């Protein structure tokens, strides 16, 4: 009997909404021809711009959470071992949507009369290296053993995407809140690997046979789990760097001075404050003329969406025959 020994990481749920892919093969299906995701697993990985299940399952209340577990606790405490195979488990916690259909999970769907919605949940997971490339080998875990892609029996609850880079639910059996899988770590040297995962707590569509699955009313949780490489030297702390708010030395000096400054006279206090200000100014950056082009870029404005604003401005200028005076940060021509 396989014994799952470690609950390694608890991840807080994030709210969000989007359209469902109730069956695993939809993740590989073409998005224009057959309602698929075109190979995008929506697990939040950087290569997908961080998009998760919430890209369609919108307005999720965020009541669920998720956990990533492993048969070997050292995976999360010491790190991954090269070429080591791990049995992982993705767990949907605090399920609430569609639980009323979970009691008899096999007795639901269009073949049942009268129609009974199914408690259909899902997940997606991939593990990426520091360059955001998927690493290692994913496989299904069926009947207590890892089953390589291509030999997974029909009915297995998980499915590896065609390109092998991510793993998702298969869609059946229903009422699942945990999915087992295998991951074989890469060769040494890959460094810290990050697991990106997301789960959906489906609510059984709109409750009718017309829409047995839809993206509304579901719940979503997403998570990111960094896994260090066992025995690897920790990456050096970030050094150097400077910003316009003052140097690090200046700020430390401010902190050290705060205790003493309360016991000195007002005049000396002002003098020290002025001195600290001067020291802090050492971190300010003088913007060179040739650097002003960067400051003039639209994405440098204090605007959440400069591109949209430009479009609005363009229309306003056309309507009113006016232009300019909108807080531009200056020309990028190098003029002083």
């Amino acid at each position, binding site marked *: 009997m396989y014994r799952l020994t470690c609950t390694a990481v608890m991840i807080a749920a994030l709210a*969000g*909404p*989007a*359209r469902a892919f109730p069956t695993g093969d939809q993740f590989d299906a*073409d*998005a*224009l*021809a*057959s*309602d698929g*995701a*075109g*190979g*995008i697993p929506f697990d939040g990985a950087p290569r997908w*711009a*961080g*998009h998760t299940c*919430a*890209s*369609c*399952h*919108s307005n999720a209340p965020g009541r669920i959470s998720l956990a990533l577990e492993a048969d070997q606790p050292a995976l999360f405490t010491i790190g991954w071992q090269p070429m080591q195979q791990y049995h992982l488990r993705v767990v949907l916690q605090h399920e609430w949507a569609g639980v009323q259909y979970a009691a008899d999970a096999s007795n639901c769907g269009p073949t049942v009369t009268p129609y009974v919605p199914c408690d259909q949940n899902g997940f997606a997971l991939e593990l990426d290296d520091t360059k955001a490339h998927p690493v290692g080998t994913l496989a299904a875990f069926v009947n207590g053993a890892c089953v390589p892609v291509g030999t997974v029996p029909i009915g297995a609850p998980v499915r590896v995407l065609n390109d092998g880079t991510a793993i998702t639910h298969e869609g059946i059996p229903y009422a699942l809140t945990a999915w087992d899988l295998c991951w074989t770590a890469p060769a040494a040297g890959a460094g810290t690997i990050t697991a990106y995962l997301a789960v959906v707590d489906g609510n059984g*569509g709109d409750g009718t*046979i*017309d*829409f*047995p*699955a*839809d*993206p509304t009313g579901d719940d979503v949780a997403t998570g990111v789990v960094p896994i260090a490489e066992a025995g690897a030297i920790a990456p050096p702390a970030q050094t150097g760097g400077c910003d316009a708010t003052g140097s690090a030395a200046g700020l430390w000096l401010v902190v050290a001075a705060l205790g003493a400054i309360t016991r000195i006279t007002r005049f000396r206090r002002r003098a020290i404050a002025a001195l600290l200000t001067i020291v802090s100014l050492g971190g300010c950056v003088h913007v060179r003329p040739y650097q002003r082009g960067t400051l003039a*870029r*639209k*994405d440098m404005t204090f605007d*959440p*969406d*400069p*591109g*949209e604003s430009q*479009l609005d401005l*363009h229309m306003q200028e*056309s309507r009113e025959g006016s232009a300019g005076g909108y807080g531009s940060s200056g020309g990028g021509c190098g003029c002083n």
Partner: protein
Amino acid sequence: MVRRLHCAIFVIAACTTVANEPATDPSTTLDETVFRCNVEPILARQCSYLGCHGNAGTALRVFTPGKLRATTPANIDQSEAMLSDAEQHGNFTSAAGFSLPDSSPGANLLLLKSLPQSLGGYEHLGGAIFTSTEDPQFVAIYRWLTGGGACTD
């Protein structure tokens, strides 16, 4: 009296109708066939999700099977049916609308919104979709905007 009459006639004669010259409809200058075979699949795969551009309220509105449809589907079969010709044309006009008459293809928001800011892209709530200007998706859209590209099958 006569002088006033002449003055009034002169003033009236001097009046003319002032109107904005309509801008060229960008959809008349772009190839819809190339859009359908080279650009629409990119928009469907990358942009069409309901929390994103599969939403009638967004500037770029993308119809796709199973997500946003032009008419509300009665059931999941209708929802997942192939796009109608009208829906595909709607995708074309929505994307073509970003081709402002006085902007170059390289300044098109379809390209810039999805490009990393480090490469000159604009802020995009959905993040950077293209890896660079060499990204095949970027290239396909750029070629369509510049009158290039061809359907290979």
